């Protein structure tokens, strides 16, 4: 193969912005992709990753510039490119009423894969995706992770010259994510496949040969992960908070000083942070507030955050400062005098003869952040819905905010807020109209309603006149939270709130959560980002309806075994796999 796989020069593309004007999705972008490698596109939401991939796939016409894919001008002859590449869109449209095998056959026919090649190819794909058992199952009845794997398998029915993957692991649990990447990496190694992947996970980008960091339709930096990491060399540290202070509280304080701190995240009981290259020593010490701090190795996420902050000056995603009244330290969860706000004993939920949740017991204390983790299909959503009173339990006791959910569901509900996984507000209403409607639905009226709506708009920095459906993903998330908090609930339920949201927006989101918990609101949250478990006071890991472990992040890591280190992702995979092995041995 001669030359580059993709060459873009001065590429441009604008869209009509909602409410008139034009929006530059791709702004004089130039890029070269080498053959036979994994290339990653990373960047915040709206950076232009999907637009770029669609242009490479010949689905969008560039507004200007030159784009050559596999030596062909894709603008002039998109079909010639489409005959040779494979593309997996962000939302891979499987035909849900067709079976797994029928979906595979369809794509094999469309690509005219010869019959004698299909046997071995399908066997390999089904083995890699671990789906050989499910070939007759309709695609619509697969779990989220399995759908994504089937989408990848359909994309790979033949060996393309270039594979495009648009955020393949959004909403996919750590185990499926690992499997997905194993497939891709195997193909790159065995078949010399060229792959371009866009992702919000920096650990995924770190596995690629080349990483292009995008923002506002431009490339901020390109290079190997190592070269990019070198940019933050000497700037990365770990701070240990004083005893009794949760790392997230220290982290929130550090993020409030953007002039000295680029980024901070809780990690393994400490706070990993990146300091500004020209940080003022005195100001830095003030932000650390006496926490001991030591240098640590740098990661790609650190470099990414530094690049974005330098480009954006940190203004874009910053939320207003947390409420000054917020106490610096959350309610100590191990205080024996506090009675639990959620109490679950021997909770069971069955659908027919399928047990979605098996005999589960746990308690959550007021002001706690409680994380519910587990692979796709583990029973998290079912547990969640029972706690919110959306689904009756088959057996067991369930007390929320001092009310028995089986007898006083309505009264318990008045004390809880719920933010669904999917954006479930009215897209064609304005932000204010949505807030007013949901406030009314919670029974707020007149002055109380106006006050709450105004407070919500201020707290989440929302434009009241914007049309809700046209907000960027991060802002939709804010609006959903603002809506769930209008009636000042004691408990807030968040179902995968950060799924599909970039690291910047996730930081902003967790700062708000930390603030809320500090103000005494109890938070129950599910997530697929294992590092987010670090924000929680306690986490529970569920699989196949069983509660595998409950405890502080440290306790959970300890249970997974010391060899897993401080990495929550590894700890999670370890615990789930161990439990699955035990279960299989028992059968």
């Amino acid at each position: 193969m001669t030359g580059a796989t993709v060459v873009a020069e001065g590429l441009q593309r604008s869209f009509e912005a909602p409410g008139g004007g034009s929006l530059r999705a791709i702004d004089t972008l130039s890029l070269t992709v080498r053959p036979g490698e994994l290339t990653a596109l990373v960047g915040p939401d709206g950076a232009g990753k999907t637009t770029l991939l669609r242009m490479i796939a010949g689905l969008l016409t560039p507004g200007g510039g030159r784009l050559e894919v596999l030596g062909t001008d894709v603008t002039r002859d998109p079909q010639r490119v489409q005959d040779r590449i494979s593309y997996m869109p962000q939302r891979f449209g499987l035909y849900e009423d067709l079976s797994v095998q029928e979906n595979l056959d369809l794509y094999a026919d469309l690509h005219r894969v010869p019959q004698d090649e299909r046997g071995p190819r399908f066997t390999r794909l089904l083995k890699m995706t671990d789906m050989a058992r499910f070939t007759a199952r309709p695609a619509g009845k697969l779990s989220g992770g399995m759908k994504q794997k089937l989408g990848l398998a359909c994309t790979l029915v033949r060996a393309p010259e270039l594979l495009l993957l648009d955020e393949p692991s959004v909403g996919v649990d750590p185990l499926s994510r690992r499997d997905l990447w194993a497939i891709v990496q195997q193909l790159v190694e065995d078949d010399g496949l060229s792959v371009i992947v866009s992702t919000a996970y920096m650990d995924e980008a770190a596995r690629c040969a080349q990483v292009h960091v995008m923002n506002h339709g431009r490339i901020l930096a390109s290079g190997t992960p190592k070269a990019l990491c070198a940019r933050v060399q000497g700037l990365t540290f770990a701070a240990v908070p004083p005893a009794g202070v949760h790392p997230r509280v220290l982290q929130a304080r550090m993020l409030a000083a953007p002039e000295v701190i680029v980024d901070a995240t809780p990690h393994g009981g400490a706070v990993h942070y990146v300091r500004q290259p020209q940080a003022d020593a005195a100001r830095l010490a003030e932000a650390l507030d006496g926490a001991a701090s030591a240098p640590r190795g740098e990661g790609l996420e650190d470099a990414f955050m530094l690049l974005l902050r330098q480009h954006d000056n940190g203004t874009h995603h910053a939320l207003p400062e947390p409420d000054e009244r917020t106490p610096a330290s959350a309610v100590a969860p191990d205080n024996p005098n506090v009675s639990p706000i959620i109490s679950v004993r021997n909770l069971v939920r069955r659908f027919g003869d399928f047990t979605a949740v098996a005999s589960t017991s746990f308690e959550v204390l007021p002001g706690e952040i409680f994380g519910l983790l587990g692979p796709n299909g583990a029973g998290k959503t079912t547990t969640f819905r029972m706690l919110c009173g959306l689904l009756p339990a088959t057996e067991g006791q369930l007390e929320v905010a001092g009310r028995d959910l089986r007898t006083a569901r309505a009264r318990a509900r008045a004390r809880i807020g719920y933010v669904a996984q999917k954006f479930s507000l009215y897209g064609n209403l304005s932000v204010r109209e949505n807030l007013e409607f949901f406030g009314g639905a919670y029974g707020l009226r007149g002055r109380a309603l106006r006050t709450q709506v105004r407070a919500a708009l201020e707290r989440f920095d929302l434009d009241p006149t914007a049309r809700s459906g046209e907000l960027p993903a991060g802002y939709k998330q804010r609006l959903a939270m603002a809506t769930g908090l209008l009636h000042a609930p004691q408990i807030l339920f968040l179902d995968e709130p950060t799924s599909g949201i970039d690291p910047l927006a996730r930081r902003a989101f967790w700062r708000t959560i930390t603030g809320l918990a500090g103000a005494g609101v109890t938070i129950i949250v599910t997530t697929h980002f294992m590092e987010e478990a670090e924000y929680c006071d306690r986490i529970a890991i569920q699989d196949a309806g069983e509660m595998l472990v409950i405890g502080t992040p440290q306790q959970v890591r300890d249970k997974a075994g010391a060899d897993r280190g401080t990495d929550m992702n590894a700890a999670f995979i370890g615990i789930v796999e161990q439990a699955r092995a035990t279960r299989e041995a028992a059968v």
Partner: protein
Amino acid sequence: MSAVGFITRLRALTRKESRQLLRDRSNLLVGLLLPVVLILLFGYGLSFDVKDARIAVVMQNNSQAAREAAMGLTGSSYLSPVWMHDMREAEAAMIAGDIDATLRVPHDFLRQLALGEAHVQLILNGVDSTTASAIEGYVNGALAVPFAKRLQRMGGKSAESGSVVIVQRSWFNEPGESTWFLVPGLVVLILTLIGAFLTSLLVAREWERGTLEAIFVTPVRPLELVLAKLAPYMVIGAIDLGMCLLAARWLFEVPMRGSLPIIIAVSLLYLLVSLSLGLLISALARNQFAASQIALLVSFMPALMLSGFVFDLRNVPVVIRAISQLLPATHFMGLIKTLFMAGDYWPDILRSSAILSIYAAVLITFTCRALRKTMD
């Protein structure tokens, strides 16, 4: 691109569309059960014929001749006379809506008859003008028979009195059955329905579920997508057509004076137009709800109201007539009625087939254009 590739992909896509069609029960309900319901509904439920219309008869003259004249009404299956004492009673019944007409035989009927100029009064309930004019026709017919006999009996005198007896013959629809008129139109309606309710969802559904984005980045061509989507629904439409023709022949005994192969051929041509129109709407709307609403407004309702199915197009305002001429359904409606009731009239067959073919070609071209593989 080779023909082999075209055939392989077309077969794969057609198989996929057929499976989706068969697995979605609501498709089959709309595609196969709804036409049966419509056939029964229109065949038995809807009729412009008047049967057993209640007519008040007020005999102000009770002579033998007057009674003989009125007896003509009892023999008709269309009329059901109710004998009443006076006009006041009849008027009250008319206002209450109990009767549809009043026939008054005046006091001086016998005297007038002797003079050869007998009058009876018929008062019609004009609220429903269609029914009223139908009753008028029936009463005229029912009264004419005894009078004609009477005149004959008087012998020769008829010519002198100068009365004219009209001998009516209705061509093409001899018994004047409205099912004869409605059932051919029903074929149009049912073939329109599949396009409006089924194919109008097909492309929009793929846009909504995001399935098109992945399909686009394959060697597939727009024409293959379009043809594969049309094929299974052509089969459904053909089954419906078969049901319509069987019902027309055996259930409603509508004559089929044109040749059956021609009826089937032009019907399939119209089916292709109807399905293509649905697909085009679907491809442009990109949203299932909008597509089905637009299809209802652009395709089904006009076919019901403006194609000449119910209303005679010669009596509508020029603007409406111009619009109706734009509808493929109008051209097919005229043709199919001619084929059923009158026979193979070639100028009509050729003209309408040419128009429908142009529609099919244009609609398929535009649908391919709308399915150009781009997300711009």
